């Protein structure tokens, strides 16, 4: 980095610390851990000093500045906070499923900081999740990148304010089922999906032009050009074309993945990440060449027709073809053990420790556009950290403590039975049964109404 960049970085950093003055920042010295930096190798018996939420020093025999708490992590592993690039935790609304394009909808409007899923994610070492709109629409709403500052009451305090904008797209069966078969409008087929995208972007170009014309004319005397109709839906699509928003696209089949790559090329869109991407292995070189990679399940498929052709080697194949690859949860349950999910890439594909850990740290950080701030243990990065008992890729791994911005939000030793922030005054306390929640995956939440008239015509599966 040259001097000018340093100055700029200092400036930007300063601005950010002002903007985020309200969220807590901690200071802590973690001693004698095996530090898994992910990007800079492993450091045995090393210390990490965090001050005011930022990693200040990494090395041996670091002395704690006065007032800074020391945590002895002898025999334990320290890794960067896990980042989940596909989640619906802490959202009051997931799908505004009523239109094929709803790019004007913002998940940041409906973040719910009280959802217990945040704490459970912290207990699994996850410090950042990408709270996405659902997959009912070709272009869904704008997503929110969350920092798991459990205990915050203001949604703004768990939104990662310095993360770039991202938006949800969806191809294939979900949008064609909801809008085409469910509602009798375009898209009914994959061709329709492409048409919706191309029409949308073309309209966005016209919209942008109309406003440019108006803005140029309005200051002039005797101007007769009237303001165009405001349309945040098209404005958001225009922002995508201007490179201001990263697309995260729900996709399964190789043909539809390649279709979107071609659409992106035609409209000169560079910021594109594929989600799920079960057939990504078939188009791995194309994904690697043109996009910001793919975020996939470790080994989960066959829940509907378009997700039958899959392999647990998907992540490894994508990775070794040079695509940025991450493993995500899309689930309030899987999010609690993403380190196990990452370890599966070693069983299926023989990835190295660093490659496997990158799948849940620096790689998703890159896909969310936040890799300059989080995703690895490096001096200057935000101190999102997890201390593990056993290596995180081991079957015996258990997260012990989870920090966000140097503040400890989870400690297995002070983990109370009831960690809920809010309890309703009218809650009937019922006996608790331990069983899996079949509806844990919320990609198609809030869509039920669209199927009522067509009950029986569709599979119950909703991913």
């Amino acid at each position, binding site marked *: 980095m040259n001097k000018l960049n340093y100055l700029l970085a200092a400036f930007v950093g300063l601005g950010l610390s002002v903007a985020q003055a309200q969220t807590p920042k901690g200071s802590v010295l973690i001693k004698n851990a095996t530090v898994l930096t992910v990007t800079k190798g492993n450091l045995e018996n090393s210390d990490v000093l965090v001050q005011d939420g930022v990693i200040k020093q990494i090395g041996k025999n670091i002395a704690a500045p006065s007032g800074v708490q020391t945590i002895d992590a002898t025999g334990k592993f320290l890794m960067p906070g896990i980042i989940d690039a596909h989640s619906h935790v802490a959202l*009051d*609304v997931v*799908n*505004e*499923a*009523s*239109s*094929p394009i*709803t790019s*004007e*909808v*913002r*998940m940041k*409007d*409906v973040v*719910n900081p009280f959802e217990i899923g945040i704490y459970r994610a912290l207990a699994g070492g996850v410090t950042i999740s990408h709270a996405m709109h659902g997959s009912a629409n070709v272009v869904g*709403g704008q997503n929110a990148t969350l920092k798991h500052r459990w205990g915050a*009451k*203001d*949604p703004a305090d768990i939104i990662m304010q310095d993360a770039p904008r991202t938006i949800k797209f969806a191809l294939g069966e979900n949008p064609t089922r909801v*809008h085409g078969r469910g*509602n009798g*409008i375009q898209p009914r087929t994959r061709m329709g999906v492409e048409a919706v995208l191309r029409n949308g972007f073309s309209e966005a170009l016209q919209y942008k032009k109309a406003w440019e014309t108006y803005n140029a004319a309005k200051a002039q005397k*005797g*101007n*007769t050009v*009237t*303001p165009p*109709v*405001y*349309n*945040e839906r098209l404005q958001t699509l225009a922002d995508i074309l201007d490179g201001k928003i990263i697309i995260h696209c729900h996709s399964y089949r190789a043909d539809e993945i390649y279709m979107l790559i071609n659409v992106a090329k035609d409209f000169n869109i560079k910021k594109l990440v594929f989600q799920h991407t079960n057939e990504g292995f078939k188009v791995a070189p194309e994904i690697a060449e043109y996009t910001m990679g793919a975020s996939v399940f470790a080994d989960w498929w066959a829940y509907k027709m378009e997700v039958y052709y899959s392999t647990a080697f998907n992540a490894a194949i994508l990775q070794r073809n040079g695509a940025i690859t991450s493993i995500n949860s899309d689930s309030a349950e899987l999010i609690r053990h993403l380190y196990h999910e990452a370890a599966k890439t070693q069983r299926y594909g023989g990835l190295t420790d660093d490659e496997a850990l990158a799948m849940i740290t620096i790689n998703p950080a890159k896909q969310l556009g936040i890799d300059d701030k989080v995703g690895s243990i490096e001096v200057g990065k935000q101190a999102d950290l997890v201390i593990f008992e056993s290596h995180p890729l081991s079957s015996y791994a258990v997260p012990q403590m989870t920090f966000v911005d140097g503040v400890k939000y989870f400690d297995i030793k002070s983990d109370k*039975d*009831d960690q*809920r922030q*809010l*309890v*309703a*005054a*009218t*809650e*009937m*306390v019922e*006996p*608790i049964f331990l069983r899996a929640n079949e509806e844990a995956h919320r990609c198609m939440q*809030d869509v039920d*109404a*669209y199927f*009522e008239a067509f009950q029986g015509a569709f599979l119950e599966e909703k991913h």
Partner: protein
Amino acid sequence: MKKQFLKAGWLGLLAAGILTHAAWGQSDPTGKRRVTSTYAITNATVITSPGQPGSKATVVFKDGVILGVGSGIQIPKEAKVFAGDSLFIYPGFIDGAGNMGITKPKDPERPKDFVSSNPPDEIAGITPWRSATEQFSASSSQVDDWRKAGFTISQVIPDGGMLPGKAAIMVLGAGNATNLIQINSGLAANFRGSRGMYPATAAGVMAKFRDVYQNSTLALEHEKMYASTAGVKRPQVTPTQQGMAAVVQKQIPVIFTAPSDLEIRRAIALQKEFGFKLILSGLENYETVIDLIKSTGTPVLIKLQVPDDKAVKAQKSEGVTEDTKAQYARVKEAYENALKQAAMLEKAGIAFAFTTIDAKAGDAMKTIQTLVKNGLSEKAALAALTSNPASILGISRVAGTIEKGKMANLVITTDSLFKEDSQIKHVVADGFVFDFEVKKKAANGNGKTDGAPAGSVEGVWEYTSETPAGSSGGEIVLKRTNGVLSGTISYDDPAGSGKVTSPIKNASVNGKTLSFEFDVNAGGLSLTVSITGEINGNSMEGSLSVPQMGSFPVKATLSSPSLSN
């Protein structure tokens, strides 16, 4: 609905005509014509505004306007005079936002080319041009119920979707008048989506709100250009944009229904984006946003209800695990905290008011008493019912306190409002006097104003009462001197053996109901015991109530003279 409203308006005008033109000399075929529209309530305890100590005064009002309050007020000769000696008078209550008397308009038929992704505004619940006046009926039984609970003014909110229409401030006077104080007093809004069409969720509603707001602003800009510059294309302002104009010009507030803290934050976030005037309504859970409400200075209307205690009451004390007990404790804590929220608003210095939406009129005073028990001061409670809503609705000039020149809206109670036994006996709204039956158990009146014929209860009554301590009894002696009922009662001496006698006070007969009180000295402790009973010929059945102990059945028979003689 609109036609009905117009008709009601005509009727109102007609009625007003009859009332003010008594000189017409025509008989009133409806039989509803008032003898006079001037009233005086004399020598009552009048609390003119929250925090004022009650002082004995006379209130005179005419044609719905207060002519004077105080002692030594001249009473016009045409006034109907009420003796208010035992009564308490408060300013009429004001409902910050309500849906009493509102009937939801029929959903319009869907057009043949209806597409749920882009529905017409009217079908999607976006109808800011509508007015609550078109949906309101002052003669609805809900209006009667709320008036009975002391409410004299309500800002009624139209029923509908995310932007149902404009609110209107109504006085809850006679059912045959227009009752309108202010039309288009605010724009109702909520986060409720339209089922099965755009916008379907709170996220969609927020996006659509931004769209509607921005385009309404642009439409006004376009209109301005059209008016000032030649060659500008004709503006095509939609009914929605027209309905939004007063909001984007910051003339009227958006009344956002936001029950939870997260919804409150969402409404305030939209307000910050656009700078419109905002009133938050329907608040239920707001403990975590009190600072935000305070710092933004947003007026708030909290629900006039407390959470259902069913869950707390269903908690079992035996046969449950420690885990369940811990969960119980959290629910209980949440319940108790919920009751304290209003007091927390007061502590933060927020001049809140109430909305009657979702609340039960019959429980209103009980709710207020619960809030007072949980830390809300009586002054703040009264302010939330009177002066605060007047100020939030911008009608302080005419309502909210009892003052000369303000509307004759009064709540008249049998005792200090916050006493558990206090009951609303009359409500004056728009100068119309509404009388309510006072329940038997409350002792009221001083023997002067009861309507029973003198002599009907005079004599010696032998009574027995059943208490957990056993059966006891004695004699009640009643007589009337100069129309005032007085007497004595004997009972088993609580301090020893034998009988003691106490004088009877506050005796009154209301219809068939006899009630009176007497003081008992029980080991240095003075208790006021009250007896209320229904007289049937020579016998009386009723209850005897002892403070902090409860009420017990009492029976009596008139032994001399017998009425049948």
